[in-house]
C-alpha cells in the first residue's frame, strides 16, 4: 500500500499503462515538460520521450482528431483536455467521429482513445474552469463515460480505460486531485462498468460520482447523528450504468437522491431519476430528488459555494425525501 493523492494515482496509472504497452501515448496542451497544469502527467515525457508524451498545438479539435488518426494506426492515445470548459472545440471530433467510427466501419475499426477531463468546480477558478459537461457525453452513443472519485479507483480505472478498446471520456474531479488515500498498486480494481456502494445504509440511497461522492459521504456521516442511515453509491461508470447495484439499493431504501455539480435541468441526474422512477416504481416512497447546479452558467468563484451542492443541500434533499 502506498499513500497517493488522486492526481498522483492517475500519474502512476498512466505510467503503468505506458510501461505495459508501447502503443500508449499521452497528448495534450502542456502535458510534456510542464507535466500538465495539474501535474497529472508529471515526469512522463522525461521518461518516455517526446514521441510518446506529446505537447500539441493549442487546439482541442486537433488533439482529438489526430488522436483518432493515431488510434487508426494502432496507437492508444490518452488525451488531456486542460479544463472541462475547453472540451467544446473538440465536440465535433468526439461526437461525430470518435463515438461513431467503430459502428461506421462495422467493427473493423477500434478507437481506444481515452479523453481525460479534469472537471467540476470548487477551486476558485475563473470562467470555463469549473464545468461538469458529462451529460453531453453520456447522451452520445458510442462513448463510454467514467468518473473517478478517489485515488485507489483513479489508479485502476485509468488503466482499465486505456486497456478498453472503446473510446472513453474519463472525468477527474479536479478539486479532489490533492486528496490522499492508501492505494494498492498491485490489486485489480472493479470492472470498469461497475458501481461501488461506498457506504451502506437502509434509509435512503445517495447516488453520486466524481467530486460529489466525498460530499455525499460527509452528508451521510452528518445524518448519522439524526439517526438516518444513508447508503452512498459511487457510480464510477455513467455510461453504461450499473443498474443492478442501483435498483437493488433503491428498492431496499425506497428513497433516492441524485447529486451532481452540473445543472439539474437536462443533466445526467435526469436519466438516473427517470430510470429509477421506472424500475423502482412500486418501491419508491418519495420521488427521486435531484441536487445539482442551477440552470445558469457556472458563476464567478465568489458565488460557487452557493452553486455547488454541499452537505446542507444534500441533507435538505434527504429531508424532503423523507417528508413524502
Amino acid at each position, binding site marked *: 500500500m502506498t499513500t497517493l493523492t488522486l492526481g498522483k494515482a492517475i500519474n502512476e496509472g498512466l505510467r503503468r499503462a505506458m510501461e505495459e504497452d508501447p502503443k500508449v501515448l499521452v497528448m495534450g496542451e502542456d502535458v510534456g515538460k510542464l507535466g500538465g497544469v495539474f501535474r497529472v502527467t508529471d515526469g512522463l515525457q522525461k521518461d518516455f520521450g517526446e514521441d510518446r508524451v506529446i505537447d500539441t*498545438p493549442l487546439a482541442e479539435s486537433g488533439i482529438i*482528431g489526430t488522436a483518432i488518426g493515431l488510434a*487508426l494506426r*494502432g496507437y492508444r492515445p490518452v488525451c488531456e483536455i486542460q479544463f472541462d470548459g475547453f472540451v467544446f472545440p473538440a465536440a465535433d471530433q468526439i461526437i461525430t467521429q470518435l463515438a461513431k467510427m467503430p459502428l*461506421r466501419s462495422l*467493427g473493423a475499426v477500434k478507437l481506444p482513445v481515452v479523453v481525460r477531463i479534469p472537471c467540476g468546480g470548487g477551486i476558485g477558478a475563473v470562467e470555463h474552469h469549473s464545468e461538469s459537461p458529462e451529460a453531453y457525453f453520456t447522451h452520445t452513443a458510442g462513448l463510454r463515460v467514467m468518473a473517478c472519485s478517489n485515488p485507489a479507483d483513479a489508479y485502476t480505472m485509468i488503466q482499465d480505460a486505456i486497456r478498453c478498446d472503446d473510446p472513453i471520456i474519463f472525468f477527474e474531479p479536479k478539486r479532489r486531485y490533492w486528496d490522499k488515500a492508501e492505494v494498492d498498486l498491485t490489486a485489480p480494481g472493479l470492472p470498469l462498468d461497475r458501481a461501488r456502494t461506498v457506504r451502506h445504509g437502509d434509509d435512503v440511497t445517495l447516488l453520486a460520482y466524481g467530486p460529489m461522492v466525498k460530499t455525499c459521504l460527509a452528508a451521510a456521516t452528518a445524518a448519522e447523528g439524526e439517526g438516518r442511515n444513508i447508503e452512498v453509491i459511487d457510480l464510477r461508470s455513467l455510461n453504461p450504468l450499473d443498474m443492478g447495484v442501483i435498483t437493488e439499493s433503491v428498492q431496499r431504501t425506497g428513497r433516492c437522491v441524485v447529486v451532481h455539480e452540473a445543472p439539474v435541468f437536462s443533466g445526467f441526474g435526469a436519466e438516473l431519476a427517470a430510470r429509477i422512477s421506472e424500475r423502482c416504481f412500486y418501491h419508491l416512497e418519495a420521488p427521486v430528488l435531484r441536487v445539482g447546479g442551477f440552470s445558469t452558467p457556472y458563476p464567478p468563484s465568489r458565488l460557487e459555494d452557493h452553486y455547488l451542492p454541499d452537505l446542507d443541500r444534500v441533507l435538505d434533499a434527504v429531508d424532503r425525501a423523507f417528508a413524502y
Partner: protein
Amino acid sequence: MTAEAPRGADAPPELIQLLTPEGERVEHPDYDIELTTEEVRSLYRDLVLVRRIDLEAVALQRQGELGLWASLLGQEAAQIGSGRALTDADMAFPTYREHGVAWCRGVDPVKLLGLFRGVNHGGWDPYEHNFHLYTIVIGSQALHAVGYAMGVQRDGADAATIVYFGDGATSQGDVNESFIWASVFNAPVVFFCQNNQWAISEPLEKQTRIPLYKRASGFGFPGIRVDGNDVFACLAVTRKALADARNGQGPTMIEAFTYRMGAHTTSDDPTRYRVADELEAWKLKDPIERVKAYLFKNQLADQEFFDKVDAEADALGKDVRRRCLELPDPGPEALFDHVYGAPHALVDEEREQYFAYLAGFEAGAER
C-alpha cells in the same frame, strides 16, 4: 512527346500541366514523368471505368436503388492520377466522392454503394486496401490523416498518407488545424484538395480570395496547383509529394484545379445557381478525352482498344448494378452491433427489449 507550350489559354499560369486538353504532351521542369504505353492505356482504362461506375450509380439512384449519390463526374483525372501514385503501404483518407481513388486502391465498387443505398454507413474494412471510410462531416478526416501520419512516423514505416477534401472544406477549422499539426510535426502527409469550383451552390470566392494552393505557404509547407483534369500531371505531382513525405520532407498541399461536371449530389439542382456556359467551357477540358486524343494521335492505341475498354466498362456497370440490387438489407440486430467493442450493458438491454418487442408484435400479428 512534344515541347509545345500549353494551349489551355485560360488556365491560370501557375497550373502544372503535362497534357493539354487537346491531348498534347507538355514538359515541366520539375514534374516530368515517363509513362510507358501500357501505363497510359491503363490510366485511360481507369478513367473510363470509374466514369462508368459513377454513371451506373447515378442511374441506380434515379431508379430508387440508392438514396443518394455524389458523382465524381469531371474529377476522374484528379482521383485516378493521385490514386495511382499511391503505394500499397500508403493510406488514403477520402471524403464521400473519391470513388476513383477507391478504385485505384482495389476497393470493390459495390462496397461504396452501401452507404448511399442506406444499408450501412460505410462498412468496408479500411485496413484491407488502406482506404479509410468515407467521411461526411466536412474536413474532419484531415486531422485523422495527420494523426495517422504521425503514427507512421513513430513506426518508422516507409509510407505516406494522403487526405482528400474539397474547396469548401478548406474553410473548416479542422482542415486548418490539420495544416498546423502536419507542419509542426513534419508529418508524412499529402493534402489533396480537389477544387471543383463549387461547394454545393457556393462558388470558390465564398471560401477564399486567393488561389487555394497558396494557403499552404502560410503554414510553412509547399502548395502546388495542378491541372486536375490532367491525369499525367496529377500522377506526377502526387508521386513527388508522396515521395517527399516518405523521405521526411513533411507535408505538401496539392490543389487539383478541376470541375464538378454534375450536380453536388443527386439531391441537388445546379441550374439554380450556375450557368450552363460554365459547364460547356469545362467540357472542353474533359479529363478522359484528352488521354484518348493523346493515345490516338500518337498511335498508342487503336479503335479496337477503345472499344474493348468501353465493353469492359459496360460489363462492369452491369455487374455493379446486379450486385447493388443484391446487397442485403441489414436486420435490426445491425442497430446494436459494433456500437461498442466490449460488452455494453445498456446496448445489450436495449437490444433485448427491442427484440422482445418485435417478437410480441409478430405474435400479435399472427393472432
